[in-house]
C-alpha cells in the first residue's frame, strides 16, 4: 500500500541548474514533494518558477546546459537519478510517461499519429501490425477524435491543438503508466475542449489507476482535479497539503495571494487582490525567504528574520507543510499558529 508514509514517488532536495553565459540559473533549487498511488498531485506556480524543469528532471530529460546536480527521485524505492540510460528508457517506456506543454511539438512530425500509437503498443505486445492498428483506432475513438479511422492516417500538423493533446493522451493510455506527468495539458486549449481533456485524465486515474502529476497555473483546474497540491515559488516548494485544506486554510502568504487574485465566476469583486513586485532573478537569488520582497505578511508582522535566513519546509499539521517564518521559530521548530 502506498500512502503519505510510503508514496509511489518521492522527490527529495532536487536541484536542477542551467549553466548559461549569464550565470547559473537555479531553476529547481531544492524541491521536495511526494505522490501517492492513484492520486492527482497538482503542481502550481507562476510562469518560470520551475514546474516544467521539475517534470523534465523526473523524466531525466533535462538537456545541456541544464543538469540535475543534487537530490533523490525515489520511485518504488529506487532512485531514478542512479539508473543508467537503458534502465531509464525502460521506465519511461512502461512506468512513467509525460504529456508535454506543447502537444504538436512533442509528436513526431514525420509519422502519422496512428503509427506513433502502434509503436507504443509494439514495445509491449506480440500483436500483429494489423491488430495494433485497430487498437490504435479504438483508442483515438475513446479519446474523442472525430472520424478516427481517417484521422489515424493524419500527421500531427494536420490536427488542432486539442486533437494533438488527445493523441498524446491516447499514447499515455496505450502505455497504461503507473505515473503520468501532465505539464499544462490544457493551457493552450479552449475551455470546452479543456473540459473534455480533464474528463479523459479522470478516466485514466479511475480506470487504469494511474497517479498523475498535474502541472498547471489554473487554480480552478486544481480544485476540480487534484487530491493534493504542491505550491512552487522561485524553484522551491513553499506549501504542500490536500486540496480542501489548501483552499479552506491556505497558510503561506504566497498561496493566500494567489487564491485571492483569481477572479471567480459568480463572485464579482470591485477590486482583485494582487501580489505586487516580481519573482526574484534565479541567477542572483536574495538571501532569506525568496518571497520576502513581495510578502505583505512580513511587513504586517515586522519580521526581520525573513530577509536574513530562509525558512524550512516544515510540517505544521498532519499532511500539511509550509515554508514560512510565520509558522516556525528560529530553531526550525513549529511555532504556534496564533498569527
Amino acid at each position, binding site marked *: 500500500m502506498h500512502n503519505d508514509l510510503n508514496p509511489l514517488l518521492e522527490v527529495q532536495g532536487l536541484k536542477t541548474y542551467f549553466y548559461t553565459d549569464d550565470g547559473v540559473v537555479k531553476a529547481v533549487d531544492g524541491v521536495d514533494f511526494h505522490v501517492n498511488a492513484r492520486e492527482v498531485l497538482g503542481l502550481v506556480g507562476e510562469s518560470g518558477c520551475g514546474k516544467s524543469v521539475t517534470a523534465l528532471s523526473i523524466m531525466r530529460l533535462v538537456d545541456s546546459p541544464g543538469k540535475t546536480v543534487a537530490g533523490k527521485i525515489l520511485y518504488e524505492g529506487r532512485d531514478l537519478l542512479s539508473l543508467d540510460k537503458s534502465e531509464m528508457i525502460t521506465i519511461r517506456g512502461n512506468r512513467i510517461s509525460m504529456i508535454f506543454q506543447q502537444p504538436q511539438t512533442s509528436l513526431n512530425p514525420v509519422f502519422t499519429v496512428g503509427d506513433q500509437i502502434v509503436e507504443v503498443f509494439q514495445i509491449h505486445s506480440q500483436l500483429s501490425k494489423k491488430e495494433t492498428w485497430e487498437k490504435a483506432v479504438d483508442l483515438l475513438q475513446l479519446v474523442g477524435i472525430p472520424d478516427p479511422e481517417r484521422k489515424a492516417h493524419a500527421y500531427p500538423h494536420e490536427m488542432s491543438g*486539442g486533437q494533438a493533446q488527445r493523441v498524446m493522451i491516447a499514447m499515455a493510455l496505450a502505455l497504461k503508466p503507473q505515473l503520468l506527468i501532465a505539464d499544462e495539458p490544457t493551457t493552450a486549449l479552449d475551455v470546452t475542449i479543456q473540459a473534455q481533456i480533464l474528463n479523459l485524465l479522470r478516466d485514466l486515474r479511475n480506470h487504469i489507476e494511474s497517479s498523475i502529476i498535474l502541472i498547471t497555473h489554473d487554480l480552478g483546474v486544481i*480544485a476540480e482535479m487534484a487530491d493534493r497540491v504542491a505550491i512552487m515559488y522561485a524553484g522551491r516548494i513553499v506549501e504542500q497539503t490536500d486540496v480542501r485544506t489548501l483552499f479552506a486554510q491556505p497558510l503561506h502568504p504566497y498561496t493566500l495571494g494567489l487564491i485571492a487574485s483569481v477572479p471567480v*465566476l459568480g463572485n464579482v469583486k470591485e477590486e482583485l487582490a494582487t501580489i505586487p513586485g516580481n519573482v526574484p532573478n534565479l541567477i542572483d537569488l536574495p538571501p532569506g525567504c525568496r518571497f520576502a520582497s513581495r510578502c505583505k505578511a512580513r511587513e504586517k508582522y515586522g519580521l526581520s528574520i525573513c530577509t536574513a535566513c530562509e525558512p524550512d519546509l516544515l510540517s505544521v499539521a498532519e499532511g500539511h507543510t509550509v515554508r514560512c517564518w510565520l509558522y516556525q521559530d528560529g530553531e526550525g521548530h513549529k511555532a504556534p499558529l496564533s498569527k
Partner: protein
Amino acid sequence: MREQTNDKDLIQVEHLVKYYPVYGGVFRHVVAWVKAVDDVSFGIKEGETLGLVGESGCGKSTVGHTMLRLLAPTGGQVKFDGVDILAAPERTLKNIRRNLQIVFQDPFASLDPRLPIGESIAEGLKIHKIGTPQERFERVLEVLSKVGLEDYHAMRYPHEFSGGQRQRIGIARALVLQPQFIVLDEPVSALDVAIQAEVLNILKYLQRDLGLTYLFIAHNLAVVEHISDRVAVMYLGKIVELAGRDELFRNPLHPYTRALMSAIPIPDPTLKREQIILKGDVPSPLNPPPGCRFHPRCPQAMPICSQQEPEMQEAAPEQWVCCWLYQER
C-alpha cells in the same frame, strides 16, 4: 422587433461582416470564403464595458480589428458618435481615429525593441502633430503614472520589462491620445493570475477616472464577468447571446453559453456540479454547419436547428439570444 443598438450608444455596430477569401486552383481564383464575422450587431454606451467572449477562432478579434478599420470589412456599419467609421473618408477618419485605440494581447510584439518605451508611447502624438517635444514628453510621463509606472521607465527599452509591465505600456500607449473608446484584445490572457489582477484593476480604475468606453475581448469568462457591464457571447462568427452581466451569468439562455459556463473550472474543491461536456470540436468557419451553427454540438438540438438559422430574439428584457428554443416557429 427592437434593435440591438440604439442612437444613444457611443458605438453602434450593425450587421458587421468580414469574410476572408481562400484562393485555389491554377489561376489563384477565390474558391471559398472563411466567414470569420457573419452579421454581428451590438451597441456600447458611453462609459460602459462590453465583454466579447468566445473560443479561439470564433471571430472576436476580427470584430475588434474590423471596427477600427485595421482590417477592411466585407460589409456593415460601425458608428462612432453617429458617424459611420467604415464609410468615412480618410480626412474625417483621422480625427476620429484619435478617439479609438486598441491594446493587443502581446504588446511586446507591437513595441519597437530599439526605441525607449517613452518614444513608442509618444508616437501617436507625433503622428497627429500634437504638442511640442517638451509637451509630448510631459504627456508621456502623465500616462505612465496613470498606469502605475515611474518617470525613469520612459528611458528603458522593452526587453527590460516584465509581462505585466509591458501590458501597462501598451495601455499607456493607447491612452496618450486621450481616446474615448478602447478595444482591449485579450489584454490579460498571457499573464499570470497575480499580474492579471493588477492589469484588470488598472483598467477599471482608468475607466472610472477618464470615463472610457471599452470593448473587452477575452476567452476567460470569469475575467469577462469581473470587468464587463454587458457581455456578448460569440460562436463561429455570430453573436449567440447578448445581455447584461448579471442576467447573463445568473441565467444564461443559449445552450452554448451554458456549456461555456459549466466548463469553467471553479477554484472551490467543495463545489460539486454537473458539467455539460460538449462533444466534438468547433467546426471550421470555412464551412459552417447549416441552420444554427452550434447544432452539431448542442445537447438540446431539435430537427429545425439543422435546417433553418434562428434569429436574435429579446427573450427576456435586454437579454438577446439566437436559438430556436426561444423563437416561435
